[in-house]
């Protein structure tokens, strides 16, 4: 990836952060690279050209950062993020103990307003997210042993969000498939990130309950999880090659062919991806 591509990716991330501020201060704290990628995909498919400005950034004190200006892409992604984060927090409060629950509780009230605002823009997305989160709650409390089914709700949410990117029926189908697989990847990555912790604590994690994982050690569990991850990436690439006429293709190529496999390999080696993926691509040498 060239430096200018990397700069643009960062500018999208920062632009999204500023856009989130229009939904409410709290939502700014929830930004992740997953959604920056969604914004970039939106811009790539719809060929959004936006101005890049330089301004001091709240998070970096007085250091100036580049960011892309307001656009449909950012507005949509910011709303999608507010919806998804709000339901994630709600879910954490319902089923998690300890620190996660506490931090979820602190964020819950301030996230209410951004969520309501986003819901007004995209009521259908809010509905799909809500339905799928309750499905997720069911799979988790029922200790579902199937990775496919456990990943389904997250995948279905991302699928619905990605499908909104284009109005062209053919592109919509391709994006829906990509979104599904991206969501599946995100779910698997999160499960893999938690696998060691859950292995010790005995909390639900579908990777621990897979067939052939009974009485396995962590290394073997990761080995079995590897296949699920790479099936997902392979199928994602099959959908992606059908999506032609993209702007910013080098950046998207980079995320799909290098960033995602890099994250996967790191997690499969048992290394931590800390926090809600907030690090800049430079620090982690990859992008998601």
């Amino acid at each position, binding site marked *: 990836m060239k430096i200018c591509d990397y700069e643009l990716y960062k500018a999208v991330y920062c632009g999204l952060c500023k856009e989130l501020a229009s939904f409410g201060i709290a939502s700014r704290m929830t930004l992740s690279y997953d959604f920056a990628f969604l914004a970039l995909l939106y811009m790539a498919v719809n060929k959004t050209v936006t101005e890049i400005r330089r301004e001091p950034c709240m998070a970096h004190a007085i250091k100036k950062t580049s960011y892309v200006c307001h656009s449909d892409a950012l507005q949509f992604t910011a709303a999608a993020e507010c919806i998804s984060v709000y339901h994630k927090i709600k879910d954490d409060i319902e089923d998690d103990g300890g620190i996660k629950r506490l931090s979820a509780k602190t964020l819950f009230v301030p996230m209410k307003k951004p969520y309501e605002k986003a819901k007004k823009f995209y009521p259908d997305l809010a509905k799909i997210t809500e339905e799928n989160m309750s499905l997720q709650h069911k799979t988790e409390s029922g200790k579902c042993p199937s990775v496919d089914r456990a990943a389904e709700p997250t995948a279905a949410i991302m699928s619905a969000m990605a499908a909104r990117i284009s109005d062209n029926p053919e592109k919509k189908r391709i994006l829906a498939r990509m979104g599904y697989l991206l969501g*599946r990847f995100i779910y698997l990555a999160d499960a893999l990130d938690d696998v060691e912790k859950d292995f010790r604590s005995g909390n639900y994690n579908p990777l621990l309950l897979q067939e052939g994982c009974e009485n396995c050690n962590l290394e073997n569990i990761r080995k079995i999880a590897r296949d699920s991850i*790479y*099936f997902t990436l*392979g*199928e994602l690439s099959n959908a992606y090659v*059908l999506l032609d006429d993209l702007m910013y293709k080098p950046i998207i190529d980079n995320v799909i062919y290098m960033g995602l*496999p890099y994250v996967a390999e790191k997690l499969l080696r048992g290394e931590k991806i800390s926090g809600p993926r907030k690090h800049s691509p430079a620090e982690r*040498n990859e992008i998601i």
Partner: protein
Amino acid sequence: MSDPYRVLGVSPTATDDEIREAYRNLAAKYHPDVQGKGPLADIAQSKMQELNEAYDKIMDMRRGGGKPSSEYTQQSHGGSSLFAEIRRQIQLGNLAIADDMLERIDVDRNAEWSFLKGSVCYARGWLNDAYHFFSNAVKLSPDNPEYRAALSNMNSAKEGKMNGDNSPYGDKTRLCGAGICDTCQLLICADCCCECMGGDLIPCC
């Protein structure tokens, strides 16, 4: 039909070899052997067709002839009429109906049953289950090319192959290749070894 050169992504001044190369690259992405029978199979197929037509047209224009070497033809499938109906439902995207029909068959769950069950899972994005059923289909009927193609597709994904990945970096696990750190470490290591043997690679350390 749109400009055939655009379809191939080459300029009208491209040489025959360049056109063949572009054709091969795109065909490798869209080919049904690679794309499998997922929910986007029809899109891939129409892109493949468009590509074939564009290639033919250019070759016709250039010297009146020349067929693409790997033109794709739709395969026909045998099997019972119930399975044929299930196939049709899968193709139409009616996965719940197809799955329901499959679940009702409780005797004689043969290779084709496994394959179709795998196809439903595959279309849903339930890739782990899909792999399981495709493997089963191949086990029951090892010579069937359709089942084998579906399984081998998933096997190449399993090994980390991604469609359209032309990255020159090869091994993705090391995104930055041999970075500066690696190079320095190697040099320092080499220096230490040399020093052990009484020599010196880097005189200052």
